[in-house]
């Protein structure tokens, strides 16, 4: 429990840091939100009025202080363009994004674990080389390209899945696979090398010497040891994932926070950008916390005494 408490304090500090950095970066932008809102034909007076209304004419430190004090009371501010509470906007789209992320991680881990394990067992053989080549292609292929290829093949040509939108299970398959595929190559490599290492360990030999089947030796004895480094990876990986989410949501017209962020960036809608950034940071922090909590369940050596 001490671990959780310490992690929560750390999480708060990280979020504060993220807020400060994003804030400074956004205000260093040459774009002027007041002018964007007012439109091209607006007079200087109108722009100044809008700027005053949004509090943009105050010193940067004051603005940040206002933002933080609002944040601590759970208020992410109001969108400049949509005139709506930012949290309401994010909350409405969060389920879609979380579904997409869950699907992506599922595909990624399932493919990565299976392929990596098979490659390790067949080390040096044809299957191993095939998996490694595929994973190389997977990690290096740009996500939008994978998305377009899948769309063309499985949605347009074969018509198995809907082109876009959010709804039933069939809607989530293509975006989930797109999101997971790139990571899967990476995981396959990680799992393969961890597995090769574990298969050479003395305890695997002991398990074989007991007369266990190869299947049991691999699933019961080798795999739990090989996924130990992978668990920590998944936590860190959520950050990578958020980047992919924006692309995938754009291609598939997925109504998640990636889309929201995409629109907000175009409109210099600073409160939304801040809100989405903080939500992503929170997701990464939670992901890492989960990884830290799951690791001791699998590995008794790091259980706190």
């Amino acid at each position, binding site marked *: 429990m001490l671990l959780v408490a310490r992690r929560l304090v750390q999480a708060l500090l990280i979020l504060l840091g993220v807020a400060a950095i994003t804030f400074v970066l956004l205000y260093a932008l040459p774009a002027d939100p007041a002018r964007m809102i007012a439109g091209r034909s607006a007079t200087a007076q109108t722009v100044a009025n809008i700027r005053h209304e949004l509090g943009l004419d105050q010193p940067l430190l004051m603005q940040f202080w206002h933002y933080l004090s609002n944040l601590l009371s759970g208020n992410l501010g109001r969108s400049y363009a949509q005139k709506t509470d930012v949290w309401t906007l994010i909350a409405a789209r969060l389920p879609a994004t979380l579904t997409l992320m869950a699907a992506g991680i599922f595909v990624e881990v399932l493919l990565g674990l299976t392929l990596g394990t098979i490659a390790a067992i067949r*080390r*040096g053989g044809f299957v191993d080389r095939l998996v490694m080549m595929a994973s190389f292609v997977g990690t290096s292929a740009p996500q939008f390209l994978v998305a377009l290829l899948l769309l063309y093949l499985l949605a347009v040509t074969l018509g198995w899945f809907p082109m876009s939108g959010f709804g039933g299970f069939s809607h989530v398959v293509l975006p989930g696979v797109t999101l997971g595929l790139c990571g899967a190559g990476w995981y396959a490599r990680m799992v393969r090398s961890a597995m090769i290492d574990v298969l050479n*360990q*003395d*305890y695997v*030999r*002991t*398990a*074989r*010497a*007991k*007369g*266990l*089947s190869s299947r049991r030796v691999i699933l*019961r*004895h080798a795999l*739990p*040891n090989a996924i*130990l480094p992978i668990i920590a990876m998944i936590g860190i990986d959520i950050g990578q994932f958020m980047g992919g989410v924006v692309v995938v949501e754009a291609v598939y017209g997925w109504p998640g926070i990636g889309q929201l962020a995409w629109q907000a960036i175009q409109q210099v809608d600073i409160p939304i950008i801040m809100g989405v950034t903080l939500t992503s940071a929170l997701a990464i922090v939670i992901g890492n916390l989960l990884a830290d909590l799951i690791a001791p369940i*699998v*590995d*008794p*050596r790091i259980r706190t005494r």
Partner: protein
Amino acid sequence: MTSPETAATVLSVRDLSVDARTPEGLKPVLRDIGFDLASGETLCIAGESGSGKSVTSLAIMGLLPKASLRVTSGEILLGGRDLLKISNRAMRQVRGGEIAMVFQEPMTSLNPVISIGAQLTEAIRAHQGSENAEAVALRMLEAVQITEPARRLQQYPHELSGGMRQRVMIAMALSCQPKVLIADEPTTALDVTVQAQILTLMRELKTEFGTSIVLITHDMGVVAEMADRVLIMQGGRLIEQGSAVAIFNRPEQPYTRQLLAAVPRLGAHAGTDGPPRITPQPAQPPAEDRTPIMNVQDLRVTYGSPASRFLKGKPQVHAVDGVSFDILPGQTLGLVGESGSGKSTTGKAVLGLIPSSGDVLIDGRNIAGLSQREMRPVRRSAQMIFQDPYASLDSRMAVGAAIAEPMVIHGIGSKSERQDRVADLLRRVGLTPDAATRYPHEFSGGQRQRICIARALAVEPKIIVADESVAALDVSVRARVLDLMLELQETMGLAYLFISHDMAVIERMSHHVAVMRGGKIVETGTRREIFEAPSQEYTRALMAAVPIPDPELYQKRAGAN
């Protein structure tokens, strides 16, 4: 004891040959190995590293790594079946069910993420069905005399000591009452007192369960204590076999004789004060009445951090707790103790390699509080040789450059002078000067340790700290390296702080001996005092635990107890 003529043969190996697949093609690893194992017999396979003894055991278990090793001919007969011809499924029933194995490394042989209980019951379920697996597991842990057996079932391997883990391994191996137990160096990684307990346990269990044992070891002392019959292997061939008494008393092959001669025998040097050369040499010059080259007063090394106002601190461990000793020029202090006794930490601390408190005077200079720069001249007079000759040489640095490096650091000589000195040092340690241009991987373990010694000698030190410097070497190689160290001591007047867990090696090398336990020196004295009249119970226990490489003497001692 069972005589092999009358007892039934359990396992029989005929003309077994194994090849290794290497980039240069197939290389023979085993050639025409043949032996019978009688029911209730303990058969020891002895030999040095690379002799093929472990490959033999893995071949019997069908556990040879397929990618690199392959059985090319021969038969392994168990109950009339040839294990090399049966199906994988049938072989799985044999493995663990009829032939079980205990491995060398208790620290890594158990799965770290599975509880002891689950690992035990798994073996039982695989061969005897699920009923009462837990009860059988508990009974087995009781049989191997582990403390608190019920609690151990819930624990994980990292919570157990090496000796306990090896007991668990033995329990696991015997849980299905196999006909044959193969133990591959089961006690090599254990402290000598724990080794004695495990060997006793194995003898008791053999009688209790009626298991035949194949014991693989490089330690002739262990062979003498355990074996009914002995096989001697060298270079993948079986060169001699016979009853234990016959092998020890009337070895036929020169290699067997050499192997036996190289074994240090505890008590072999009783009645002398200095360490005699293994090959006879003139006596040592007396080295009394001189000021010590190393003087250590109240040395303490503490791990962990004390609690402060803000931090809870880590629990403090006194790894070295008030150790004091002197070493005279040209003499050797043997520092002996079991793992965790603090002997290696002491070795590092006296050279200022880890932070410590207390006074260490090297050649009259106190190293306490010296900066890195001020330490440099002191380092010239005190050098170190480490345990692992494989890891302590940079694999990308030519041997000559490695030996010259300390001279470069200390600014000794010109480039050509250093080259001459490297050649001279290589000759001194028994290598040829052309070794200078070669790389460490071209040398054997013993040769590498010679190179490490040459490197330590490069700056003409007055004292060398040797931390388990021969522990990783085979007995015959070990004997030659020890001999070299004695010779260098004689000709160069070197002093050694010789750290070892091996009482026999300590006896061979030392003028004075200090016995360490729990970070403290529990007994110190001349070699004669320690080995002929130890005053501490612990010292006596350490010595009693050392296996005697003489089966008849062992029988007598065992009978007397």
